[in-house]
């Protein structure tokens, strides 16, 4: 099968991927850097390339709410947002997952206010990490496209029925033209398949009540069911990714490994920064330093055992967070990884970097690798460090 090589921005690539799922309904509200994704999609609709109904709502809260109404009614539905828009949705972001509605969202990562800042960090996705959505991070436009195709299959799987967030770095990925391969429309749709909702409000012959008052006698059991769903979700992410790999030749796992096999020291990172890190790792490898990288693609559900397995036996691990957990013990990825490594006797250090779009440069990666060498040699490095910030 021929996969066309195209040059697209991340926003365009994701707009194409969503269009290929032939969704019934989209609802969104503009916010930089997500805007272009919806502009592109609106163009598709205006030019008759898809007949998706777009609801041009008056806020992100309503974008998420209308998406809930649409998905509960039985329609394949997506939304897209960034930063403050995602924060405004927050209440309904939880409700979407709890109602088990497989909505897809493009979350174009941008720093949260205040102060207001339009550039990339992951504080928006991380703010929603406990909301119950599957979260797939992307390193470049190709990965954003691939994740956005797979998202439908994963979320709509009958044993999963959970919303999926495809995240990609604001501007760095969303606005940068990149070469990628796209599936032909028919092949993509065949892979994704028709949407078969479990229940639908529009099935008026079989009326259902969605979102009742759920008190002390049942709520916890419902939450227990939901908690159990994420183990299943991880299995489905795995199997869908394998199938996608067989179809496209691009294989995905929970994480991507880079020069990991023999690595004594490992950096754990998410999103576009992995590219920068790989370059510097190459330089150190050339000098004989055994350093490698583990790029987390699926942050939710968090593949704790898988990551612990990958990091077991290393001499030192550095976890890089592009968001802070104010008042917490390091960034969210650090906290999760360090907890996953409990009892493994591997020293794990945390780095917070790139807040508000601060450049993640080669020097910062080098600094982390220098620290890793120090830790591996038994030297002292703080548990949590800030990277690339003036003191």
């Amino acid at each position, binding site marked *: 099968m021929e996969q066309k090589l195209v040059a697209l921005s991340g926003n365009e690539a994701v707009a194409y991927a969503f269009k290929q799922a032939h969704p*019934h*309904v989209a*609802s969104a509200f503009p916010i930089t850097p997500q805007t272009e994704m919806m502009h592109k999609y609106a163009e598709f609709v205006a030019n008759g390339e898809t*007949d*998706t*109904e777009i*609801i*041009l*709502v*008056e*806020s992100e*809260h*309503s974008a998420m*709410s*209308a*998406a*809930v*109404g*649409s*998905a*509960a*009614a*039985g*329609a394949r*539905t997506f939304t897209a947002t960034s930063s403050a828009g995602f924060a405004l949705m927050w*209440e*309904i972001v939880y*409700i979407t997952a709890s*109602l088990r509605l497989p909505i897809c969202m493009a979350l174009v990562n941008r720093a949260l206010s205040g102060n207001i800042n339009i550039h990339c960090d992951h504080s928006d996705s991380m703010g929603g990490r406990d909301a119950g959505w599957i979260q797939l991070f992307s390193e470049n436009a190709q990965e954003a496209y691939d994740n956005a195709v797979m998202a439908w299959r994963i979320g709509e799987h009958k044993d999963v029925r959970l919303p999926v967030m495809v995240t990609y770095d604001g501007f760095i990925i969303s606005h940068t033209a990149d070469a990628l391969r796209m599936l032909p429309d028919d092949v993509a749709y065949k892979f994704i398949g028709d949407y078969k909702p479990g229940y*639908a*409000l*529009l*099935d*008026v*012959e079989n*009326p*259902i*009540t*969605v*979102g*009742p*008052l*759920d*008190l002390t006698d*049942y709520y916890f059991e419902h939450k227990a069911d939901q908690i159990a769903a994420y183990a299943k979700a991880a299995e489905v992410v795995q199997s869908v990714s394998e199938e996608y790999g067989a179809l496209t030749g691009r294989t995905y796992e929970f994480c991507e490994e880079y020069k990991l096999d023999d690595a004594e020291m490992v950096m754990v990172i998410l999103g576009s920064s992995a590219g920068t890190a790989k370059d510097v790792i190459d330089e150190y490898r050339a000098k004989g330093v055994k350093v490698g990288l583990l790029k987390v693609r699926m942050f939710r559900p968090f593949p704790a055992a898988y990551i612990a397995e990958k990091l077991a036996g290393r001499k030192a691990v550095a976890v890089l967070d592009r968001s802070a957990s104010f008042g917490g013990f390091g960034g969210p990825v650090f906290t999760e990884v360090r907890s996953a490594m409990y009892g493994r006797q591997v020293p794990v250090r945390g780095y917070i970097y790139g807040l508000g779009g601060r450049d993640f440069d080669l020097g910062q990666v080098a600094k982390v690798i220098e620290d890793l060498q120090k830790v591996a040699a038994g030297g002292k490095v703080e548990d949590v460090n800030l990277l690339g910030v003036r003191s």
Partner: protein
Amino acid sequence: MAVNLKTLTHNEDLLSGGHRACAGCTGANILRQVMLTAGPDTVVGSATGCMEVVTTIFPYTAWKTSFIHSAFENAAATISGAETAYRALKKRGELPVEREKINFIAFGGDGGTYDIGLQSLSGAMERGHNMLYVCYDNEAYMNTGIQRSGATPLGAHTSTAPAGTVKQGKEQNRKDLTSIMVAHNIPYVAQTTPFHWKDLATKVEKALAVDGPAFLNVLMPCPVGWHFDTAIGQDLAREAVECNFWPLFEVENGVYTINKKPKEPTPVADWMKKQGRFKHVFKPGNEHLLEASQQFVDAQWEKLLKLEAMTNS
């Protein structure tokens, strides 16, 4: 449109008994009456609030139609999504069941409509969805313990604006939400009460018949929040119309019709007197509150008469 009691009573009751509304609550009357006219091919949405809470305590539901509750402030947006899904699926011939028409109705209390849900409502109305929004207005946040809302009338005692030694209940007049909805230039806006069943049923029928959004504001006496004897809820709905506190009117494509013009409106004080929430207003020293209440009602009524004359000339 002719609504006839006999036909109405033969329609299926789509809100079953056994829900947990308080004795004397007129809210369930509103839901039942709306649904008798709307019929089973209806998708209902509700904002958080008394009516949602009392009808859907898991594992029970009083709703015999499709029903969705998501949050407090988003009933309009949620139903706008369901309505859009309907059009999208219909266009592709993918509806789960074929129906000539499916109604989309969102219910919200005054809190969920006048206040926290106003943006969501305004957006949905402006976008022109084919849906009916019904505000059941009991003039306070009852579900959370009778806090004041934008719909609470001047002087009313609530838990957050109580009558005390220096303050005398709510210090502002109520917001005129119905006018705000008229300003959206939607095809149908109306006010009614559950006492005026024929008026209510006719308005629901008209609202569902228009092509586009419709809004109904329904006054809903609440014995718990208004402090009255559980037997007189419907009387208070009737008397609210007789004293011009809550005129029955409709606005069809911008044209006002007052459906009932009391020959000699009763003093609003008579209506207030039957409600414990206004007890302090009748104490010596608070005469100005009574006067201001009457003045507000008179001014609103005069305005309404003018709007009717103006839009019919």
